[in-house]
């Protein structure tokens, strides 16, 4: 899980062109608003990232809400999907 979290942080920095290093990202901070500060347009990058890099399709907001809680949330979602 820790390796996956590290990998996701790196991908977030690269794909969303975040102005900070992967180490500076709080694993449990909310992705949106006052947490990591992502917005509705960044969701598109996250959905594409999960599809392209992990083969997981997210097609609606209900699924998105489960997945995009925090970096740990994304990692747990990927792990659960891979296991099922």
């Amino acid at each position, binding site marked *: 899980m820790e390796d996956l979290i590290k990998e996701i942080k790196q991908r977030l920095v690269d794909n969303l062109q975040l102005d900070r290093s992967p180490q500076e990202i709080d694993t449990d901070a909310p992705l949106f608003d006052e947490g990591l500060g992502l917005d*509705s347009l960044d969701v598109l990058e996250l959905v594409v990232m999960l599809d392209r890099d992990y083969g997981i399709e997210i*097609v*609606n907001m209900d699924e998105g809400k489960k997945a995009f809680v925090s970096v740990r949330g994304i990692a747990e979602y990927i792990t659960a999907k891979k296991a099922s």
Partner: protein
Amino acid sequence: MKREVVVTGVGIVSAAGISPEETWNSLKEGKSGLTPFSLLSSPKYTGVPAGQVSADLAALSGLEQSCRPDQLAVIAARQALKESFPNADSRVMEKAGVILGACVGGMSQSEFFLQQLLLEGVTDTDLLRFHECACAAEAVAEDLGLFGPCETISTACSSGSNAIFLAADMIASGESDMMLAGGIDSFSRLTLNGFGSLLLIDPQGCRPFDEQRKGISLGEGAAVLVLESAETARRRNAPILATLSGWANTCDAHHATAPAPDGDGIARAIHSALGQSGLSPKDIHYINAHGTATIENDRAESSAINLVFGDGMPPVSSTKRVFGHTFAAAGAIEAVVCVLALKNRAIPANAGLDQLDPSCPVRIQRNFENSDISNVMSLSLGFGGNNNCLIMTRGEA
């Protein structure tokens, strides 16, 4: 001095019907045109409620070798011109121009080209003829013999209204006597997957202003209005369906997709259109909202309507559940809905609503209702905070 601009014909083709009469009947019966999506062989979105036109567009238009957006545009434009000119008058028509809103044009053809190229190595360049989103306006000009200005506006979901806005300006200033104005869009993988990846497609079908809403339903369609100076319309005894009494366009200058949450940009568009029309908020009897059913749009739009109208708010409804969100066609379709509402003296319902979202405190119109309305307003809001407001006043027809 600015000239008065009137509507002398309307045409519309969508999931809710292939003529103004069929469309009005759908609105009257509160019938949603959404059906399980079956076009574009997209396994991810097949079956999701969408506003697709079931009629055979190639047969209906007679344009067998064309693409869906061009066929939709030509069908709607012919209807509009037919209403305006029961007896075709080529002398007037030759000077007329056409301005359409379009987001993706025949992009689904280009996508098919790419798919064939990548999977099978086939290069069918004929498919690329429709790539320009300007192709529909050109198809209309060619089909109807319109030799005036021919332009295309692409400002996302406000394109159709902005086409009407620009055409109205041209007529008011004396630059043109008659313009066909409207919008078209059909499905493409870009819009389907784009909105899908933004998680903005509601799997249950869109529910504007509902507290459980989860996004839009995609749709396709076209609507065209014949706009004309009142002077020439009266001279030739054309049916004056409505007067376009106010039109305005503003930008939030806030974000690439999301509207500014306070609704200030939308409110400025409403004030500007009201100012031009000489009407005050209390004179507006119905607002056809953009109401896409995304969380952000409906909240920002409600804020704006509250800012301007406050306690004196007229009935508000979004008709997106009836048509789906037809992008560049939406503003034109809803302008036609407003013309039909004035003509038939009735207010269409906000279909798809169960519980009104408390964070969208608008005076929602739940049911279709006969009402002696004289002035109506249509709002259209595009990505990037591109806000359009049109005001229409009942005509003489």
